[in-house]
């Protein structure tokens, strides 16, 4: 059962002589519960694709459908709400809010949805951090955590609202091998246990090998 579909996706930047076409009619379908790696050389359009799939950017043309919702015509406000409820993000540099604790960072998407930090959200946030092996670091300021710990907090945050899709852009790119494998193991565990769909952009073939599906992007289209 498909979770999202993009068809003939085109994205260009600039105009005239400086126009750059990053995506050139890309087609892709992701099934629910799938764990897929997005591979491809730098400049192939991986990050742009993730950004569009994450509703952070509109495509120049083409179709983008997720959970039966046509996202190409949705308003900014509608996309913001959709993103909060259905999509989680893990970035290469964790991108935590430095002035907040680990738990506050994890609870953030739920607090945005509820308008406040509910007890239920804090409880789920604490559970997620415990699953990430950070039970001792729940109330630590995020700035005081190690790189690997920060990235695990970022994974927990991405899962907070139990989204159907988690987009991870080089989630292990900034970690040592041991931390990278630990993070991937956690992601795989969540995928198996909760059926969350993951699309992980990576250059690392060993990381990609941990995923059930490998999607190769080259020259703005899916090439394999």
């Amino acid at each position, binding site marked *: 059962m498909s979770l999202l579909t993009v068809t003939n996706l085109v994205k260009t930047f600039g105009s005239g002589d400086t126009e750059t076409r990053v995506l050139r009619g890309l087609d892709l379908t992701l099934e629910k519960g799938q764990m897929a790696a997005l591979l491809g050389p730098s400049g192939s359009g991986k990050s742009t694709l993730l950004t569009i799939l994450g509703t952070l950017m509109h495509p120049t043309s083409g179709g983008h459908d997720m959970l039966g919702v046509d996202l190409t015509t949705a308003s900014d*406000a509608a996309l913001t709400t959709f993103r909060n409820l259905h999509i989680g993000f893990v970035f290469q540099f964790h991108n935590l809010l430095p002035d907040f604790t680990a738990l506050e960072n994890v609870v*953030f*998407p739920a607090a*945005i949805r509820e*308008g406040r930090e509910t007890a239920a959200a804090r409880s789920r946030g604490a559970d997620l951090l415990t699953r990430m092996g950070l039970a001792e670091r729940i109330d630590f300021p995020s700035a005081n955590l190690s790189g690997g710990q920060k990235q695990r907090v970022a994974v927990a945050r991405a899962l907070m609202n139990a989204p159907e899709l988690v987009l991870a852009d080089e989630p292990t790119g900034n970690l040592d091998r041991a931390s990278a494998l630990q993070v991937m193991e956690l992601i795989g565990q969540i995928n198996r246990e909760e059926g969350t769909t993951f699309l992980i952009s990576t250059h690392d073939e060993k990381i990609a090998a941990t995923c059930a599906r490998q999607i190769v992007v080259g020259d703005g289209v899916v090439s394999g």
Partner: protein
Amino acid sequence: MLYALKIASRYLTASKAQTALLVVGVAVGVFLFIFMSALIGGLAEFIMSRTAGDMSHVTIEAQAEDPGQIATFPGLVLLAHDASSDAAELREALNLMPLIEVMPEVLAVSPQITGAGLLRRGTRVAQVSVVGLEPGRESAILNLAGYMVEGDAQLRSGVILLGRALALELGLELGQSVVLQSQDGIDATLTVTGLYQIGQGGPDRRMAYVSLSTARTLFAMPQGVSRIEIKLHDLYAADAVAPRIEALTGLPAESWTVNGAQLLEALNAQAQTGYFLKTFAMITIVIGVASALLLSTYRRRPEIGIMRAMGASRLFVVGVFVTQGALIGVMGGLLGAGVGYLALLPFPPRDAFRSGTLPMDITQGAYGLAITLTVIGAILASILPARSAARVDPVTAIGQ
């Protein structure tokens, strides 16, 4: 918005030094606002108490009657003149006074007999304006009791109150006698029972106060009075009250503003100056808050990008920065108002203003207004940075 409040508070506490500087900057603006309010208000109070506060706000004055025309000849008119009754008189005034006194706007009423006279003490002579006041109402209009430097302001038959400067000119001391001759040529020997010092040359050197009964004798006015002076609770109501008194009594009533336009103009100009200064203080606050929050917006662009990526709406981001502005306004407003109040405490209260000192009126600090305007100003100042934050592109910001 509860969560926006939490984030705003966290941002402010995360940069304690920067927040403290910002709050102090706002507090200085609020302090200036309060200081100027107290100074301008106190100064106006001081000037008013020294001028309009001591004068009649509405005056009913007898109009001198035109001399009767006896006969006319080609190139010549023959007029009748009664030399024994030069002073114009309000004959029924005393009967009308109760009508005036019950008006809610009226604070005090003083019937007076006025005229010119000569004070003689041995070979020394001084020309004076004589004012006859009703005992018990000596300080109804001019606060005579407050200006007494020797003796007291109580008038009774056979006594006279003089300015100390005039007493010095005549070589008079308290308890000594002086002869007062009225314009009607009637003499009275009076005892000096009080010396006052208003601080103005005219009243201190050219006025003499006697009792109404003494004045009746001096100016041959057995029943009526020359004028009625009326003091109002609100002197600015004089223009409205004067016509009502005129309609009520049928007597010509004149507001102090008819002859006090220059004073009114000066007070208005002073108030305008105060508004300008206070406006500039507010503008300083707004610019300070806006620039600090703009800087914060720029510094936190990546975080704003993350928030947006996590599903925070533009309105939420606006809320975070506007709440920061409001919190800065509240803290700066309270701090500035508190410091302003403490700084004004050492100044004497409005009832004890003295010449040569700053007439700061602590009650006119406009603390509530200062805090309210500061919060509103800080919120307005935060709108531009907040809108700028809401426009942050999450993709670009996260990539920074």
